[in-house]
């Protein structure tokens, strides 16, 4: 079905974003994301689900999770 996947923001265009998901470019709506509030800019990653960006990916949190995983390995 319409799984949520991470993609890189390539271009911001009003209430949509152009997102690169694994090499394929897709347009996603920003109607469900406070883009200004989260300071969304090109280069950031978002989770895209059914044509909508539903969350900005927090790079610091991701690196912290990877660090925690490494600690127990």
């Amino acid at each position, binding site marked *: *079905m*319409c799984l*949520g996947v991470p993609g890189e923001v390539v271009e911001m265009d009003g209430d949509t974003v152009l997102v690169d998901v694994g090499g394929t470019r897709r347009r996603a709506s920003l109607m*469900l994301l406070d883009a200004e509030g989260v300071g969304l800019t090109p280069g950031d990653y978002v989770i895209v689900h059914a044509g*909508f960006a*539903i969350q900005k990916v927090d790079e610091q949190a*991701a690196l912290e999770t990877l660090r*925690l*995983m490494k600690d127990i390995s």
Partner: protein
Amino acid sequence: MIRYVDEFRRKGPARAMLRRIEDVAPRDCVSIMEICGTHTHSISKYGIRGAVPTGIRLLSGPGCPVCVTAQADINRIVEFSRRNPSVVIATFGDMLRVPGTFSSLEKERAEGADIRVVYSPLDALEMARRDPAKEVVFYSVGFETTAPTVAATVIKARREGIRNFSVLSLHKLTPPAMKALLDSGDVNIDGFICPGHVTTVIGAGAYGFIAKDYGAPCVVAGFEPLDALYGLYMLLLQLRDGRAEIEIEYARVVTWEGNKRAQEVMYEVFERADSRWRGLGEIACSGLRIRGEFSHFDAEKRFDMGYVDCDDDQAGCSCGEVIKGLVAPSECTLFATACTPETPMGPCMVSSEGTCAAYYRYERI
């Protein structure tokens, strides 16, 4: 540069994490349930179910929105399309092949009904925009990740003055299903792996009552193999230490409050309603219906979508019990004999997020 997929799939760390899981695995058997079709699929695909110590039972619960749709709700869209072949029915791909009691959307399409698969509800709206002479009905299933996308689409339709678009809402909510499972006492559940993207929307705080009232620990996990393993590890630590808390493994997108904007959009268009689930029966306030202000976009108000009650499972089909984690797919008499992905007898085999499909593809020896 981090790209958020490969980093969470590495084999070396996965093997190391399995050893840590063995270290903290309890002596007694524990049953951990995930309630997300993507987790079901991921756990089977990456061999996690078989790789964890035998005392840890990984159960799949009602996590696939296609699978938990009541048979009567499948039948009525099929019946509607048969009576109104020129109305465009837009649907997510998985719903196409689910067998209703007498037919399916796929069969009706072969008979000439205008049924189209979409990736996004926005695609369905676009169909309505391009062809104002045709009615477009979006057959809308999904949990709290999908419902906001449909709500946003309805808001867009109203804003743009599109008059030929409507939605048949069969949306369901995750926490009420978890509560119903725990209340039923049918299945012993020691802890939950909570769905990553549903929780991105609703926030981890939504599960607070599960730890508080039922003493069951919960970990919100992502979908890559390292996420699922680390989430399981965090859950086992809670069980070992006698804690019952809500923890977030998928911290890169999940927060305690969730996505407030998405929640607001969802509840601007929808309100909670009682809902009928395959396997779980009627659960109070567990579904979403379209609010009165948006009744123009409510397919149930626009059309006669007669609901005729019926039993969920066809003869021999165990989907209802598989959905509750009571029965493993391999224990269903039809599994891999009469029921295969090519000849599915029930939704759990049809859907890409269904438990039986995951077992068929990855768990058979």
